[in-house]
């Protein structure tokens, strides 16, 4: 079995951590911002790791990693009773974030954050709306949820009407 090395920048909270891994089978040498960990790693099934830090006596730590449904680059991590949200940063991703923040103009879709049924559409095409204003009411799991406009603007398209079933991520209304 050959050695395998990778590097990654992982953001947890407001701190960015530089991680370097070198793995050979179950043996992993990892460095986080220069702090070195020698580990025995066992992955029981996708994303569930049992780590034995070899320099800490018989210590054992279980870590669970799950990718976020909403955002491919975001991970939910649990270490014992603590929960973290982590983002893997790639060289392009920081630039992209900056671009994302600056894009206030242009059409923005309002998407359903859940599968469900449209109860009411509160606006018509051509209406001018404020950021945070209720646009569509979606019912899921016996609850009605008002989805709000992501920006100030004009409603250019209304793609659903009351009674429609929608999937998670479906575009409901476009606001420009």
């Amino acid at each position, binding site marked *: 079995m050959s050695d395998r090395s*990778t590097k990654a920048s992982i953001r*947890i909270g407001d701190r960015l951590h530089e991680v370097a891994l070198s*793995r050979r089978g179950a043996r992993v040498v990892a460095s986080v911002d220069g702090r070195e960990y020698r580990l025995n*790693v066992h992955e029981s099934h996708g994303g569930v790791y049992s780590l034995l830090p070899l320099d800490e006596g018989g210590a054992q730590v279980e870590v669970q990693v799950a990718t976020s449904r909403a955002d491919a680059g975001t991970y939910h991590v649990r270490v014992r009773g603590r929960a973290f*949200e982590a983002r893997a940063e790639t060289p392009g991703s920081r630039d992209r974030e900056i671009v994302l923040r600056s894009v206030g103009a242009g059409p923005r879709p309002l998407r359903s954050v859940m599968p469900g049924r449209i109860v009411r559409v509160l606006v018509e095409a051509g209406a001018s709306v404020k950021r945070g204003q209720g646009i569509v009411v979606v019912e899921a799991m*016996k609850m009605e949820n008002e989805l709000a406009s992501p920006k100030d603007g004009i409603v250019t398209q209304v793609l659903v009407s009351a009674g429609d079933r929608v999937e998670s991520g479906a575009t409901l209304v476009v606001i420009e």
Partner: protein
Amino acid sequence: MSAPFRKILIANRGEIAVRVARACREMGIATVAVFSDADRDSLHVRYADEAYPIGPPAPAESYLRIDAILEVARRSGADAIHPGYGFLSENPRFAAACERAGAVFIGPPPRAMEMMGNKIEARRIMKAAAVPITPGSDGEVTTAAGVLAVAAELGWPILIKAAAGGGGRGMRVVRRAEDVASSLAACRSEAAAAFGDPSVYIERYAARVRHIEVQILADAKGNTLHLGERECSIQRRHQKLIEESPSPAIDEATRARLGEAAVRACRAIGYRSAGTVEFLGDGEGNFSFMEVNARLQVEHPVTEMVTGIDLVKAQIRIAAGEDLPLRQDEIRIRGAAIECRLCAEDPDNNFIPSPGRIERLRAPGGPGVRDDSGVYEGYVMPPHYDSLFAKLIVWGETREEAIERMRRALDEYVVEGIPTTLPFHRRVMGDARFIEGDLDTRFIEGLNGHSPEAGREATDRAVDLAAIAVALARDSGARRIAAETERQGRGVASGWRQAGRRRQLEDRL
């Protein structure tokens, strides 16, 4: 002991259908499941001896269809029907129709449900039975002038409530005289639309109240026992999230007083089976009647844990005509039990519902831990039904031990793929007010913080290990894609994946 019934139809779904099926199996009674088109792969179907489709996903077209359910009872030869909670459980027409069809309804007599179904009528009956009721109007109020007259006596704010409402729906708080006319009109039209009855009445409104309820068991001879109380003050949208028994706010004398009031309430309506009498507490030891829940409650396990009585089996035996085998002085409350409701909701996003696929599931175990679940790994929760998918219940010799045990069990509980209320429960179990037992129905508003943590110190081993695990997961993911690409020859899979990923990125821009 011989089985009281041969075969029971369970007219419900999810965790409660599984719970009832477990009791039946232990009693040697065959079970019949019914399922909608959205529930063919649900756990309650797999735990049943027979299973029959009853219609499309919408509850009105399946789980609420009396004719379809009774047709299954006839075809399967079920001699009794357990309604669970929700759906048809408190529908007197269903209870009566079961009896007419020759199947025993496992629940109270239809007449008792009818008497409690109208809240104005319920208040009148309770007052006559010397059960303390919340100060309010003597009957229906139809005019703004009528509301103002009641408000002048009670003081502001007041609550306008639909006579036919329930489950936290059909009520409105009014804080000043100017809003009375519009609130009354809105409440009446909402009540007419939601319940088919526009009648409303007035109650005094208190912002900070404790929600305490008493579990009752009554047999056909009228023997009626109280099994202690449950504290259910931790709620969102007027729906409970955490329950415990006993309540940390109730002493032995109050427990006896409430229990006796609850027994009087049930006797006044000729109640039979398991039932619950709900009270509101004002924090100064005063309790007033709110309503009778004429069914098994979601939170019944906490009572089972502290009394040792299986409420579902008791319901079944009572329905078969057996007498209660216990007297009131044989009921003992031992230790403390807590229940956390696991719902597919995002607690960091206003408890927005989050149905979807459960990618990973590992339930806790060990001493004093009970997991009443309706799901399994790989199950896709449909959007048509309640978000509750499991209940985690623990028992401890003391409330302190129960809290410590709940913390441990919550840490063991793994649900990935959908947001759940698990992080919320972990927060509550560490909250000083909860630990003190300082609870009221607005507890959640005072709960601060959200779950994802930032590193606490500059070098935090847990943060480092989290970062390492993410790097490992990314590395494994990259290797899997590479292997797949190789296997598929020309890299078709990877091409699709990249296209998919590119689309995601474009969508985000």
